[in-house]
């Protein structure tokens, strides 16, 4: 599998983790009014890019700046690197302006990913909101390509409005599968929408996973993850079996500069994925 393969690129990356590699934009996909995916190919055609779901890259727009963005593509398609970005400020706006054929700098992959192996033999519950579906999409690809290794798989996804729903084609495919329970909800909708309306946490009580034999992974705005943890606890899921992905502003991405430090942990190196019991206190601290 691509994930296990040790590509030349990653060998180089390991020797000098700050090296930026040029990638070419091969495809731009508009996901919603402010969110888009880029399919990137290495300038060195033979190079493959392997990663663990949940890891991120530092994307560098020449002359503008660099931002951490999770890898959102399929770990089994190692020739194409996919990133889904929501435009919020200077660098993400510059990324949005890139066109097919343009160059972007990539260094990574960095960080610790989702506990896919820990979930073997268990039900898996994925709770995600907004752009939070991006870091979890590689998990879904991985789970589905090894479907027999897991119990029930439940995907709960919340978006602001029906127009903000990402990855529509994937979602259609996932919803038509009998071995994946997919629920979508939006915070508000007009009359044309016939799906669920309400916060994503309200779907937790509705889904049919075994709380005592499951691994839960949550990704989205921190407030959403906090309420998700509370709901999962109500269902009886242990803190050690719940995982979250944390976001902090970053500079080096490799545990050197301290930019992303919270308490004794460096989100870029020790995270971004953490078990809830290891970050519970951080979650509850107001000044964070």
């Amino acid at each position, binding site marked *: 599998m691509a994930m296990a393969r040790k590509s030349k690129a990653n060998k180089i990356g390991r020797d000098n983790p700050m090296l930026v590699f040029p990638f070419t934009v091969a495809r731009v996909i508009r996901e919603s*009014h*402010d969110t888009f995916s880029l399919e990137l190919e290495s300038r060195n055609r033979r190079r493959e890019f392997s990663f663990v779901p949940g890891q991120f890259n530092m994307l560098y727009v020449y002359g503008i700046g660099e931002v951490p963005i999770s890898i959102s593509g399929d770990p089994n398609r190692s020739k194409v690197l996919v990133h889904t970005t*929501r*435009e*919020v*400020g200077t660098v*993400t*706006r510059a990324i949005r302006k890139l066109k097919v054929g343009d160059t972007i700098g990539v260094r990574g992959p960095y960080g610790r990913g989702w506990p896919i192996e820990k979930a073997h033999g268990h039900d898996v519950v994925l709770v995600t*909101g*907004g*752009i939070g579906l991006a870091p979890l999409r590689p998990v879904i690809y991985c789970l589905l390509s090894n479907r027999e290794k897991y119990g029930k798989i439940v995907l709960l996804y*919340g*978006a*602001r409005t029906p127009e*903000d729903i990402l990855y529509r084609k994937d979602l259609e495919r996932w919803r038509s599968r009998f071995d994946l329970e997919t629920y979508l*909800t939006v*915070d*508000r*909708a*007009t*009359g044309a*929408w*016939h*799906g*669920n*309306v*309400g*916060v994503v*946490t*309200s779907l937790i009580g*509705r889904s049919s996973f075994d709380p005592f034999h499951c691994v839960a992974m949550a990704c*989205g*705005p921190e*407030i*959403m993850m906090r*309420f998700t943890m509370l709901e999962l606890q109500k269902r009886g899921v242990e803190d050690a079996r719940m995982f979250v992905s944390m976001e902090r502003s970053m500079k080096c991405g490799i545990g050197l500069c301290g930019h992303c430090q919270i308490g004794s942990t460096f989100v870029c190196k020790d995270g971004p994925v953490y078990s809830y019991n290891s970050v519970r206190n951080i979650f509850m601290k107001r000044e964070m």
Partner: protein
Amino acid sequence: MENLERILSEHPFLAGMDTKHIQLLVGCASNVVFQKGEFIFREGESADAFYFIRHGKVAVETYIPQKGPIMIRSRSEGEIFGWSWLVPPYRWHFDARALELTRAVALDGKCLRGKCEEDHDLGYEIMKRFALIIAERLEATRLQLMDIYGDGPKK
């Protein structure tokens, strides 16, 4: 009646309730069906029931002039909706519309209020359960109001 008693006693909302209280509820219950698109109630009408959804999906909506109906929440199989029957002036604050063919058990609010007045133990059991629902809705509404997914790019 037997069927209604079974449906109510198996519903998680009434889990742990005494059989005698369930039987009192059955006296106020009836099976109802709503066709797709049918309004179950409208804002301002007298709130005379609450519903256990057996199959289907219901939209809770409000109407905004110039924008039309905005869906605030949806309710589906296994869930209950409607608590305005419990608090004066017993009027609906929103519209409810069936999004698909919906079968439900309706509990007559006036009948239930009468029984709760007569039997305060039943009243307390009902209040406890509705307090949980109201707290959960309040929490969900707060999250919705926070607009946690943000408001798009900052230009």
